[in-house]
């Protein structure tokens, strides 16, 4: 009965490859997010979807493309992987906004991506 799950947990790949990370939440939340956490633990938002619609798109290289087939899933596809993409990627979800206010976020366990 995992609330927010991600696969895979670990991903080791060569530079230049294309890879995907999947995320699913069974909390019934409308909004899902992708975050990147670097080696210094700094957590930065990348994308957010609300009911399958992209609402936040930070300054992220267009090699990163999120896809939300339904509001319970948000996948992240990365093309032409680079060394600097090595990080831990977290998926999160949050309940519907009330008057546009962000509420608590529920995080997945993370995917550690290592680009060699």
């Amino acid at each position, binding site marked *: 009965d995992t609330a927010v799950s991600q696969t895979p947990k670990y991903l080791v790949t060569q530079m230049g490859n294309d890879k995907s990370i999947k995320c699913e939440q069974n909390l019934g939340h409308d909004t899902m997010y992708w975050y990147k956490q670097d080696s210094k*633990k700094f957590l930065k938002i990348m994308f957010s979807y609300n009911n399958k619609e992209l609402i936040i798109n930070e300054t992220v290289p267009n090699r990163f493309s999120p896809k939300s087939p339904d509001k319970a899933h948000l996948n992240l596809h990365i093309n032409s992987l680079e060394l600097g993409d090595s990080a831990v990627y977290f998926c999160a979800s949050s309940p519907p906004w009330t008057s*546009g206010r*962000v509420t608590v976020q529920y995080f997945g366990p993370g995917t550690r991506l290592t680009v060699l």
Partner: protein
Amino acid sequence: SQQGEEDPQALSIQEGENATMNCSYKTSINNLQWYRQNSGRGLVHLILIRSNEREKHSGRLRVTLDTSKKSSSLLITASRAADTASYFCATAGYSSASKIIFGSGTRLSIRP
């Protein structure tokens, strides 16, 4: 740009002591949240304080918010070994496309 900055970056205390972490932010907020991250895990929400609140408690946690100084503190009383983790503050603004912005975190170590 990064909104919240935690202080100290790292804190090591003896089990049973109290731990205090501070967070400063730059712009007006709707609410401020604290999260915990155990090593190798995702973040877990601890407590949320709204901009019109000054203090909030949850078990051994006490959070204060001073909007005039744009700062918040998280106090963990009677620390336990299981409290060893990184703690992050996160701020939420007012816009409809608002997002929460995380600080850089405080790494807390509890010595047995």
